[in-house]
């Protein structure tokens, strides 16, 4: 669709689904219909009012769609009849079919999510119903790193279904530590193309996200999961990596070979430097993570500030060089 649809367009699009819905669900509740369509009850009443003035060409007596406005406004019950010619919804549009099929293919690639068979059958039926509208679905792909973590994901899924506690050996790459923890699983999430377990970590006494490809070992304990009532799922819309304003602010000078850092990690500021590199500032929660990053950069980046952190990195490099002396 070019540009935003007009208000009347949106209303007509909704009516072409609303009408078959209420025809096939006699005496549907206004509140439920409003929730299903994601609009207010008042909006559904306005929609019904449009239907009330619609009907067969000429609009003679008996041609109008019958809408019980009194029941809708008074009791919140929707009753519509005399519109059998619009008892089926409009076929799926290209964007609708594409968005749905690509989403389903993404689910199919996410291990531990749903029964592959059901997803494949659903895709086949949708493609059948959508016809040519779904033809382009192969041209949009969301790659999920699924195979390598399939076993871990299956274990997480089973623990979720059985509501049992998990034990994890979990690698924290920033510190290069493998930690042991008991976790009460809350959900299995896909974000940024990777799988995560979100759960209540008994060690941290807080919600934590665990990236499944960093789980070194996992087992289901013979203990019922008990997620405390104060546990809240993280809003993943803001992204997985959320720097805190309390974290230390670090300034790095990146050479041309280290520019990727600015693209890979959220930076507070990025500016060009005359040598073809960049000067960036970023929030650092754990100094060990940053020290490892600068070691990896191998001269492609160095710490400008704070000075003591710069000295720590130099000391790290010298200690590592001792083994090669």
């Amino acid at each position: 669709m070019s540009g935003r649809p007009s208000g009347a367009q949106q209303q007509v699009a909704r009516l072409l689904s609303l009408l078959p819905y209420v025809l096939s669900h006699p005496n549907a509740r206004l509140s439920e219909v409003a929730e299903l369509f994601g609009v207010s009850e008042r909006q559904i009443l306005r929609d019904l009012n449009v239907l009330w003035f619609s009907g067969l060409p000429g609009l003679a007596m008996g041609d109008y769609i019958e809408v019980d406005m009194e029941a809708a406004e008074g009791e919140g019950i929707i009753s519509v009849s005399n519109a059998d010619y619009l008892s089926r919804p409009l076929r799926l549009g290209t964007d609708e079919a594409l968005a749905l099929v690509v989403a389903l293919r993404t689910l199919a690639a996410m291990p531990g999510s749903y029964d592959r068979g059901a997803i494949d059958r659903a895709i086949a039926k949708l493609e059948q119903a959508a016809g040519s509208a779904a033809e382009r679905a192969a041209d949009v792909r969301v790659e999920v790193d699924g195979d390598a973590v399939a076993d871990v994901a299956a274990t997480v899924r089973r623990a979720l279904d059985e509501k049992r506690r998990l034990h994890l050996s979990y690698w924290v790459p920033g510190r290069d530590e493998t930690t042991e923890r008991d976790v009460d699983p809350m959900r299995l999430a896909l974000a940024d193309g990777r799988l995560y377990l979100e759960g209540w970590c008994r060690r941290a006494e807080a919600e934590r996200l665990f990236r499944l490809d960093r789980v070194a070992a996992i087992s289901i304990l013979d203990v019922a999961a008990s997620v405390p009532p104060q546990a809240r799922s993280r809003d993943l819309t803001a992204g997985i990596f959320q720097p805190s304003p309390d974290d230390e602010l670090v300034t790095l000078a990146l050479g041309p070979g280290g520019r990727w850092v600015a693209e890979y990690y959220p930076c507070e500021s990025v500016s060009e430097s005359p040598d073809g590199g960049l000067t960036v500032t970023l929030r650092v929660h754990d100094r060990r993570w940053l020290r490892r990053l600068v070691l990896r950069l191998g001269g492609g980046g160095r710490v400008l500030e704070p000075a003591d952190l710069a000295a720590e990195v130099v000391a790290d490099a010298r200690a590592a060089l001792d083994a090669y002396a």
Partner: protein
Amino acid sequence: MEGKGHVVNQAKSERLMNLVICLLVSRGYVPKSRIRQVVGGYGEQSDEAFERMFERDKEELRELGIPIETGSFDPFGDEEPGYRIQRQAFELPEINLEPDEAAVIGMAARVWQHASLAEATSRAVLKLRAAGVETDTSALAAIEPRVAVEEPAFWPLWEAVRDRRPVRFAYRKGPGAPATERHVQPWSVLSWHGRWYVVGYDLNREGPRLFRLSRIAGEVQPAGRAGSYQVPPPDEVRGAAGALAPPRQTASARVRVRRGAGYGLRRRATGTRVGPDGWDELSVPYADAGVLAEELAGYGADAVALEPDDVRKRVVERLRAVAGEDAA
């Protein structure tokens, strides 16, 4: 008033609905003059105002995906052309979904974190609900599949791939690098580790190229007719996107790793020899000596490259550069 907020011109919605019904229930093409008579709202307009209004209404309905056809049954073409909507092209065909199939479709509607795509999936699910499909997802609440799209270039490229329309955009080879204009026939948009890319034929460089959406500066402009190129077979498209897949690890390095450290190396090691001194010796497969050296340098004093010599030298070079020592 229309288009803004909730204030919708009721008369216009009624007119559009009545126009749809009129064209859908008629047996043949309905002449424009007849439409003007029977669809409320047109009759009171001047000739000119009616023409404008009718053209716009048709356009808006077509944008919703309503297939309004123009034609005439008159073999001599003398008759005034008319309009119709064929039911089979209009209606969603029968679709019978098992409860588990319907449930996954309900979940799929939650995947996209992009306004236009989320709306498109919601509309699709509403159509299915209206056709009698019950998409109860309450049993699946513990699964949270999210696909985010933050790059503004995504939507115009989705449309370009969908319509097979060449595009033009300014592209930076890296963050902060100068942007150069690219003229591309997009084949496919894909997401890898949460980042979006477009693969297509670069008309300036005369070859397939992969572009990262976050490096597109400014707007993606249409630059050619829809349907003016063909997308090669899937294998070729995948090949062009192959740079995203991790390269094959054909070589192996010997690395000493302190016990309890280096899980990133241990998890892919093909062999581990436990040493008596608190250190283990791993065989680590790799594809590129430079990339492995970078990784090993990151472990600092917890990992020591033993062989091959090439990897060992590169690690030392990197560490010396960080330590501020000149390469020997």
